[in-house]
């Protein structure tokens, strides 16, 4: 995938929700839901975004599609900066970028038939005749594995997995290039999850789709993603190709997150060294000074509490934002500040 171009380019994206307070309802602070994230998504690949609830992954997904106005930073899709588009131009752009939502119950209008739901984007963005539209709706229903006979039924008559298929058909209606999947399987049963994930993969290879796949399910992300970004409290702490990230996590948060996933194998479970993080995720309204993870990090050093770590590329395509890594790779730069906290005499010796 070396020759592939970046379809989506996100640069220093910030999304702060204002907090109003006091007598005059003045802004007294901000929830820093997404706080300066940058990444590319290559054409035809799946970028997995993982993290715990409240880390900003869904907000990031919505901001990338400009469903929220970004506070700062830029998002360009297919070479166009969508933050700068006017409302009409943005409307014209919408067909290329679509979204599949988490809750198939809440994201489908209960008063519209399946044909109505899947056909609505066609009404809005195309001038197809009635018969052409119906042909397209049937085509889409076939593509996602829904029986055509059910076109005039309402969402309540379908199971969760089938509803998610309706949501996927709607997202596909306008031949998008890029789809943000926001926890598309979180509300489904295990045996149904696999069906939906297989469908998403099949559609990707058939239509050359690019996915941003947001999920908290690390095993499923390992299956579907090509590259994975790990988010914590509004920041990306680590990005790497999927195999590399799972085999060789560098950031202490990624390590802890991976070790916390229970494995369906009692013999493995017994010998697994689990890193149990203490405490909870701090409030994004008042993130800690320095590294956002410093309040829970098992390897915390003094420098972490005062200086925000820079993102360092440790290998091609593998970036980490952690002082431990920054020190290992450029011992000279961080110098003596953190050196005494880490046993790294070898590197120091070499540098000297």
């Amino acid at each position, binding site marked *: 995938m070396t020759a592939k171009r970046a379809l989506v380019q996100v640069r220093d994206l910030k999304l702060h929700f204002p907090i109003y307070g006091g007598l005059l309802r003045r802004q007294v602070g901000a929830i820093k839901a997404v706080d300066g994230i940058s990444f590319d998504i290559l054409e035809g690949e799946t970028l997995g975004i993982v993290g715990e609830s409240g880390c900003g992954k869904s907000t990031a997904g919505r901001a990338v599609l400009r469903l929220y106005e970004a506070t700062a930073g830029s998002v360009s899709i297919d070479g166009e900066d969508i933050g700068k588009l006017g409302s009409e131009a943005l409307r014209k752009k919408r067909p290329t970028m679509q979204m599949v939502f988490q809750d198939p119950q809440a994201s489908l209008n209960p008063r519209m038939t399946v044909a109505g739901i899947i056909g609505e984007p066609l009404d809005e963005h195309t001038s197809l005749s009635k018969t052409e539209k119906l042909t397209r709706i049937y085509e889409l229903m076939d593509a996602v594995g829904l029986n055509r006979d059910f076109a005039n039924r309402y969402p309540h008559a379908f199971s969760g997995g089938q509803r998610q298929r309706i949501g996927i058909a709607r997202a596909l209606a306008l031949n998008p290039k890029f789809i943000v999947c926001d926890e598309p399987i979180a509300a489904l049963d*295990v045996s149904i999850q696999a069906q939906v994930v297989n469908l998403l*993969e099949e559609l990707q290879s058939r239509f050359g789709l690019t996915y941003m796949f947001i999920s908290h399910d690390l095993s499923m992300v390992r299956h579907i993603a090509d590259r994975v970004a790990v988010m914590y409290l509004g920041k990306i702490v680590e990005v790497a190709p999927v195999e590399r990230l799972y085999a060789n996590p560098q950031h202490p948060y990624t390590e802890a997150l991976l070790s916390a*996933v229970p494995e369906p194998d*009692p013999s493995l479970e017994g010998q697994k060294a*689990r890193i*149990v993080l203490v405490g*909870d*995720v701090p409030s994004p309204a008042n993130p800690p000074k320095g590294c956002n993870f410093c309040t829970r990090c098992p390897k915390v050093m003094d420098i972490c509490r005062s200086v925000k770590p820079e993102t360092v590329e440790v290998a091609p395509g593998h970036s980490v934002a952690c002082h431990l890594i920054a020190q290992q790779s450029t011992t000279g730069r961080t110098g003596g500040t953190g050196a005494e906290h880490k046993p790294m005499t070898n590197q120091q010796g070499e540098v000297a």
Partner: protein
Amino acid sequence: MPDGATPVLDVKNLKTVFATRSGEVHAVNSVSFHLRPGELLGVVGESGSGKSVTMMSLLGLLPSPPADVREGSVMLGDRDILQMGAEDLRAVRGREVGFVFQDPMTSLNPVFTVGFQIMEPLRAHMGMTKAQARDRAVDLLELVGIPDARRRLDDYPHQFSGGMRQRVMIAIALACDPKVLIADEPTTALDVTIQAQILELVKELRKKLGMAIIWITHDLGVIAGIADRVMVMYGGQVVEQGPVREVFADPAHPYTRALLRTMPKLHGEREPKLRVIEGQPPILGRHPTACPFSARCAHSHDRCTRENPQRRDIGQGHDVACFWDHRGATA
């Protein structure tokens, strides 16, 4: 685990039917199981498999109508819970059997302090004075790992995070030293790192207090980590039951086998395509006369659609409700 010990809880042929506008729903069909002292029994199944309804039926927690616990016996020691009157039942709930629910937000009362809610069962069941109950409540909060316990008693549930609220729920369930703790998806609403904290806590509490636990979940990974025995439910029935290592290493029911294979792994080879269980879970409209899994099963034959297989013993405390012999099979 003392193998031959008399079970603290012995459930036989439990059957629960719901009356709905569109007819009856047979949610629990002839479920039998037992729980030994100090043991952790994991119950797995998908939504609608009857795992929660089974546990709610045990303690008469389902509103009737629409629910009707039609048959069966639930022996707690030498008494049948299903035959108890309202007063006795009230004494059992909270005193002898503790219950932890899935959602820690909705199962705590938002208008009472956490301290009040922990002290309530202590005063009702144990006849403690306010001061005694308060001291005990502090001990309990410390036991479940809530720092600064005495001060936190006067806080309201919204002042606690999700993981902390679940700790409070566990403290309430443990308040009267129950013999049995039933935990219904206690970590499903929590993040993985918080789930890991709760799982560690439960392991520790088992060592300290030694109560028997029934842990309901849809996550096979959680079961693998904490359970002694596992019971797999499908379509309102127990399809497989056995020691946890046995069931994971050598699953005997096609459903268990398929379920284990559909889950992507965190380690090892990445499969190019996930295996799926085709089709949908059954609709439990009438008393089952066929195997509930037969429509989705790779090994089904005509007998499976004519007759509902009964659980048969396959050795080492492992049993399965299936006609198919899994030994020597590869799929």
